[in-house]
C-alpha cells in the first residue's frame, strides 16, 4: 500500500466522522426531538446541537487539507482515466466537490461565530441554514469521493 492510498483511507475515515457529526447536528436543528426519544432515529435527532461545532470545524479542515494533499494523485491518475472513459458527469461532480469544499471553508468562521455560547435567538435562522449548507456540502463531497473511488478501484 503506497502513501497516497493510506492518506486516502484516512481522508475517508475523517469524512465518515464528519458526516456523522454534521448530520447529527443538522437533524437536531431542523427536526429536533420534542420529547425524550426511544427510537434510534429519535435519539439521533435528540442531541445537544452546539456540542458538535468544534468537532465539525476540526474534522472539516482536516478532511479538506488531506484531500488537498492527495489531490495531485487524483489529477494525475484518476481524472485522466475519467476523461478517457468519457465519464463527463463524474468528472463534473468532482469539479463541484472541489469548489463546494472551498465555499464551505469560507463559511466556517461564521458557522463558529453563530454557534458560540450562549446561543443568540436572533441568529437562529443563520445558524440553522449554515449548518444545513455545510451538511449538504459534506454529503455531496462524501458521495462523490466514494463513487469516484469505486470507479478507479482501490489501490489501482
Amino acid at each position, binding site marked *: 500500500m503506497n502513501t497516497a492510498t493510506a492518506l486516502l483511507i484516512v481522508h475517508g475515515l475523517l469524512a465518515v466522522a464528519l458526516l456523522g457529526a454534521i448530520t447529527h447536528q443538522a437533524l437536531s436543528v431542523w427536526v429536533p426531538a420534542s420529547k425524550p426519544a426511544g427510537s434510534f432515529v429519535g435519539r439521533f435527532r435528540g442531541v445537544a446541537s452546539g456540542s458538535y461545532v468544534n468537532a465539525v470545524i476540526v474534522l472539516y479542515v482536516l478532511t479538506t487539507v488531506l484531500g488537498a494533499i492527495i489531490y495531485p494523485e487524483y489529477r494525475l491518475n484518476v481524472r485522466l482515466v475519467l476523461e478517457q472513459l468519457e465519464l463527463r458527469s463524474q468528472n463534473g461532480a468532482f469539479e463541484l466537490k472541489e469548489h463546494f469544499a472551498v465555499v464551505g471553508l469560507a463559511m466556517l468562521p461564521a458557522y463558529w*461565530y453563530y454557534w458560540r455560547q450562549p446561543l443568540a435567538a436572533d441568529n437562529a435562522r443563520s445558524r440553522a441554514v449554515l449548518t444545513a449548507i455545510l451538511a449538504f456540502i459534506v454529503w455531496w463531497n462524501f458521495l462523490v469521493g466514494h463513487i469516484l473511488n469505486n470507479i478507479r478501484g482501490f489501490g489501482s
Partner: protein
Amino acid sequence: MSTPRAFGVFSVVFAVVGSIVYVICVEQNYALFSYHPAVNQFGAGVQEPMDGPVMYWYGWIATSTIAATLAGLLACALPASVAQRVWSGWAWLIPAAVMIVFCYLLRNFFL
C-alpha cells in the same frame, strides 16, 4: 471568554468575499500560483502546463483567502453602529448563491 462583536462582522464578510472572489478566480483564472503535479513544482501566477497537467486550485484558494481576510479585517474597522446592521444571513446566502453559480458554470459536464 467572550468573542468580540467585530469577529461576527469579520466572519460574515469573510464568507461573502471569500465565496465571490473564489468564483471570480476560477472563472477568470486568477491563481496566485500554479502547481505542476507531474514534476512536483510550484510556480508564481498562472503558468502553462509543464510535463503534464497544471493545477490552479491551490492558487485560487490562496488568492481568495487573502482577499477575504483583508476584506474581513477592513470590515472590523467599521463603526459599531454600522457593524451592528450587517445581516448575518449574508454569511449563508452568498455562499449558497455561489454554489448555484458553480452548478451553472459546470452544467456542460452534465448535459
